């Protein structure tokens, strides 16, 4: 990990991986969308609306996974002062906020025909909404502080404090009676859904993961470039 503390080496690595990431993302989305929108059977109760799940569930997973990545990167930044860790944390936040927003919107679109309402204030929905607010707070900290080093430290603290919300989201459907269904894929006794739905769902989850990896690598590269330009401008001004 320390070897890639050097931004130039990281950039070189990112450049070699990126084409593969882009390719696999496109491929996985093509296969995943074909299976989930065409091949997967209709639900006998939900009809075609069940297909929203193939967009919604991976988005919700990624919303939490991205926050976890952000919190881990923040911890690494605080403990080892790894120079790329705060770049990783900073650039993960907007992507995670988009995943969270997507999960909230698709859940809402599915909830209207299925539950008869766009929104209910139960534990799962509320805690995911809080996750969205935490992402916004984290982004706001980066924007409010001009010194990058100070902003990185404070943002890392904010990310780690907000991490308490992640287990709450995960277990909210078990701890409270929720309108949202409990976990049906990651369970001790194996998945509770049929393979005709499970396989497209897992392909979509993989596609989302690769999408995150692609976007994150691009965003990290951009951020590194941005900092270099900033430093060069500073050096020029100071002569």
């Amino acid at each position, binding site marked *: 990990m320390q070897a890639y503390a050097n931004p130039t080496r990281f950039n070189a690595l990112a450049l070699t991986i990126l084409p593969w990431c882009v390719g696999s993302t496109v491929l996985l989305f093509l296969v995943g969308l074909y299976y989930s929108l065409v091949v997967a059977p209709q639900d006998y109760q939900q009809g075609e609306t069940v297909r929203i799940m193939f967009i919604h569930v991976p988005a919700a997973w990624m919303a939490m996974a991205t926050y976890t990545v952000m919190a881990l990167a923040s911890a690494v930044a605080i403990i080892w002062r790894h120079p790329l860790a705060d770049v990783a944390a900073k650039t993960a936040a907007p992507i995670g906020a988009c995943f969270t927003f997507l999960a909230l919107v698709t859940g809402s679109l599915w909830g209207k025909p299925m539950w008869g309402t766009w929104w209910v204030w139960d534990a799962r929905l509320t805690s995911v909404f809080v996750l969205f*607010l935490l992402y916004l707070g984290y982004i706001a900290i980066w924007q*409010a502080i001009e010194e990058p080093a100070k902003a990185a430290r404070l943002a890392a603290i904010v990310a780690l404090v907000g991490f308490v919300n992640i287990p709450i989201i995960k277990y909210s459907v078990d701890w409270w009676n929720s309108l949202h269904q409990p976990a049906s894929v990651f369970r001790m006794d194996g998945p509770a859904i049929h393979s005709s739905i499970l396989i497209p769902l897992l392909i979509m989850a993989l596609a989302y993961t690769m999408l995150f990896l692609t976007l994150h690598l691009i965003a990290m590269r951009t951020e590194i470039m941005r900092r270099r330009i900033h430093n060069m401008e500073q050096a020029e001004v100071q002569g």
Partner: protein
Amino acid sequence: MSMFWSLIRRDIVLTLRQGGGAGMALGFFITVLVLLPLGIGPDLKFLQRLAPGALWITLLLSVLLSTDRIFAPDYEDGSLELMTMGPMPLELVALAKSVAHWLGTGLPLAILAPGLGVLLNLDALLFGPILLAMVLGSLALSLLACLGAAITVGLRRGGMIISLLILPLYVPVLIFGVSATNAITGVPELFGPSMLILTAISLASLVLAPIAAAAAIRAHMA
């Protein structure tokens, strides 16, 4: 330890003499309570159902409003820098500041809130439970407020950011505070568990929030 107590005493004396502490927060609290029936309508039955939640939200906002006074004056006159270099660990400084904020602002509001609940036709049965829940919950509110103040000290737009950072963290306190209060008139079995979780949140904040706040102040002073 004597430094710890004298810091608490100093902060409480400052909030009491400078204003901006409990008095100002109480004024805000009452103003919001007066605005609510004007906006919602004076139907007493409806207000009674609304009262616990409204009191809790008003408490949250009042505590939030007083947060910028926790570190800002010390940051401006340089005493915060002295505290970072002093013999007392910064974590204890943050804890003392939180406790002082609780004693000076959170606790008085929590004690007075049920009495002010008469403005919203609060059910007399709920006076005791809401008092207990608010006293316990306001400790977590003050600790988290102190954390928010530590993160945003010296920032130009600190006020807006502190709400965005801290209000999401207030959500659990609000949920369990209201559920403990409403349990009395609804499902009495829920009162115990809700109070236990509320206490757990306060205790967890008591341990973790000063550590995070101290880290934030160090980042500012570095």
